[in-house]
């Protein structure tokens, strides 16, 4: 028998551990000086990761129950 799943509300996720990761991602992948030149790294890979994370975080926002 598997243990009951731990229930964590989206609000808890956003306000606790994930909040710091969200801020980290926002700062480090979406802000900061964009150093351009003869770039070796495929920047598209970084952008793709950011787009995926943004979609995930937006999806978490939509899971929030409406407040009365």
């Amino acid at each position, binding site marked *: 028998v598997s243990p009951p799943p731990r229930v964590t509300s989206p609000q808890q996720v*956003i*306000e606790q551990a994930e*909040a*710091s*990761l*969200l*801020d*980290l*991602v*926002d*700062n*480090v*992948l*979406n*802000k*900061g*000086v*964009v*150093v*351009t*030149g*003869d*770039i*070796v*790294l495929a*920047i598209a*890979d*970084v952008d793709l*990761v950011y787009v995926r994370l943004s979609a995930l975080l*937006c999806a978490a*926002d*939509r899971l*929030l129950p*409406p*407040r009365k």
Partner: protein
Amino acid sequence: VSPVYVYALLDARTSGALPSGLQGERLRTVQRAGLVAVIGDVAKAPEVEAAALRAHDATAVAVAEGAGAVLPARFGAVLEDEAALARFLDDHEGPLREALQLVRGCRQMTLRLSSVSGRANALPPAPPPEESAARPGTAYLEARAAREPHNDPRVRAVVAPLEGLVRATRVEGHSHPPLVASVYQLVPIDRLDDYRAALAAVTRRSPDVHVSPSGPWLPYAFAPGLA
């Protein structure tokens, strides 16, 4: 010729010892056009993962310890060699120096504002045509200005009381409720405690909006082209 990874730009050489880089490489500085870049020689670009993002930020923070003005670089760009970095610094000297002047002695606080009522937007809708017919251009511009995220009354209620404690504010509106806006504020390091106290008072008397603060961060949101 070795690829270089850029961690941060400074206005003067950092006084403390430099930390190690993402791949354990020894960091060094390159001075060019009145700017100082803190770089590491790397064999390849870092993988995009949470640990690497944290390490990038932690490295930039450690570099900032001995510097007065720091602009952190965005994660992930590896330049072909030092000559490419020199060209970048030459091409962007003016905006970079202006940004360094702005952020000197400051850290960034980030406020995520979400609506308690769940409403996405408290801003006035566009005026109906009959009201704007007399001076349509002016009416259009006024209505557009009123819909800017920094004019949202919920954002104003949080930002206005903090204005005396910050050097600059940047607001990004969000279209996914309940998120209303992200507010980035540049706070002098010696005013951070005052800022936190003022923010606590502001959040206690702002019933329409929930404020999730984080920071202090390096001034990522005040890089040239963003602020």
